[in-house]
């Protein structure tokens, strides 16, 4: 574990430079442990790290670091039961313009890509990027496909995508460089609901094929 300031108002806690079940378990433990702590303004969990924002007028990096150690030294509380969420997806065609590329890259037929993609159960590792983008672990390794060489200017809301060894869903229309294989009509982001994102860290996700409307 390395702990160092990322700025004059944040502390970066890193558990190694490789994605592993162990480092991710520490990320979730620290995130849950520090949620609601009065010294903490914001938590940014990722694959192997947690960034902690605080008010530098009230607290020091040393104080936050002590908080991190205290949190990791207390016995881990039992993990909350994950929520299970099913997402209907229309694959291919205009909804998934890169499905054929993924099939070609993986040497599978488009149908086989869909079959394997929908057979897997995904875990929301964390939520981030521009807004509420769920980073999903659990993509079958044979479906891994490199990102586009340059990002698209416009990825439609609800696009289901593969980026390297990860999967994700674009909650809002935005630029993006992942391979689009389908689209969901389920609204992942609703600014009127609190909190707005449907998918949250720790959720389990399954994709179900839907026929075109």
């Amino acid at each position, binding site marked *: 574990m390395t702990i160092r300031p990322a700025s004059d108002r944040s502390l*970066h806690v890193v558990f190694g430079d490789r994605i592993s079940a162990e480092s991710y378990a520490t990320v979730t433990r620290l995130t849950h442990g520090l949620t609601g702590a009065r010294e903490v303004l914001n938590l940014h969990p990722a694959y192997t790290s947690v*960034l902690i924002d605080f008010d530098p007028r009230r607290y020091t990096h040393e104080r936050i670091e002590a908080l991190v150690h205290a949190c990791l030294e207390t016995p881990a509380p039992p993990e909350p039961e994950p929520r299970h969420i099913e997402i209907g997806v229309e694959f291919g065609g205009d909804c998934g313009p890169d499905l054929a590329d993924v099939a070609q890259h993986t040497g599978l037929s488009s149908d086989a890509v869909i079959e394997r993609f929908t057979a897997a159960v995904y875990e929301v590792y964390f939520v981030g990027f521009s807004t509420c983008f769920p980073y999903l672990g659990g993509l079958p390794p044979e479906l891994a496909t490199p990102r586009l060489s340059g990002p698209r200017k416009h990825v439609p809301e609800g696009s289901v995508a593969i980026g390297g060894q990860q999967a994700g869903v674009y909650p809002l229309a935005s630029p993006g460089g992942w391979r689009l294989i389908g689209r969901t009509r389920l609204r992942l982001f609703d*600014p009127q609901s609190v909190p707005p994102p449907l998918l949250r860290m720790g959720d389990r996700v399954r994709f179900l094929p839907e026929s075109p409307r």
Partner: protein
Amino acid sequence: MSVIRVVSPGLQTTVQDLGRFGWAHFGISASGAADAFALRAGNLLVGNAENAAAIEMTLMGAAFEFESDTVIALTGSDFAAGIPLWAPIEMKAGQTLRCGPSQSGARCYLCVRGGLAVPKVMGSASTHVITSVGGRPLRTGDLIPIGNESIRRPRSAPKTVPPLNDGALRVTDGPQAGNFGDDLYRGPYTVSEESNRMGLRLRGQAIASAAGQMLTEGAPLGALQVPPDGQPIILFVEHQTTGGYPKPANVISADFRRLGQLRPRDQVTFERVTIEQALRLLQQQEQWLYGL
């Protein structure tokens, strides 16, 4: 309840407070005033708590009609409104305040005694423009209710206002500083037209970094991230909560005020300071606010 009517909305006029905290792990950054120093000062001048909701105007100001007698303060940049800045001012019922194009920096704040009584979303009244969390930019005809949340009498106008730092933007080392040389500090960089509350895009000499993939990680306010084209982006109040581009440096808290006032085509250079220096500079800035 008394209201303010939007007579003309300006370029991008939003309701802001000091931001929405505790939601970054849901992928939502804090938002809040781009020049929080100016918003806090304006609120203190009219006798509000410093976090009261107020109005942020960008580059081209708005016009507002006041339904009843109201004490206001304009802070931040000079938007040619014809009234003194950084001072509590009485507006009469029926009077219209017309702000124009900026004569100095990017943003001007209208703080109103009692605050703005707009609904809070996830604990904050601030507008996150890109996602519409907390609302949308103001339009002609919008009616904004004034609250009754003042906590003391309006203050007297301060004799002087601390000037904006117009020298180099001061930065501390970012998490990947070791992968970068001194390119960033050779400057200058020009603020691009594509800049917004999410990020300030800079154009200048490309910044080289040692090759190497990094894992997506948390990204703090004020981080300089460098995409493969070498043109840095300063993450601003509506920034992404995580990112995969390396970050050689981070603007210090005391210079966030300057970030909020940067306009397209402004030029900036960078200067490295230590965390200790950064905190001292922040403390100096706070001293002035405590004196209001």
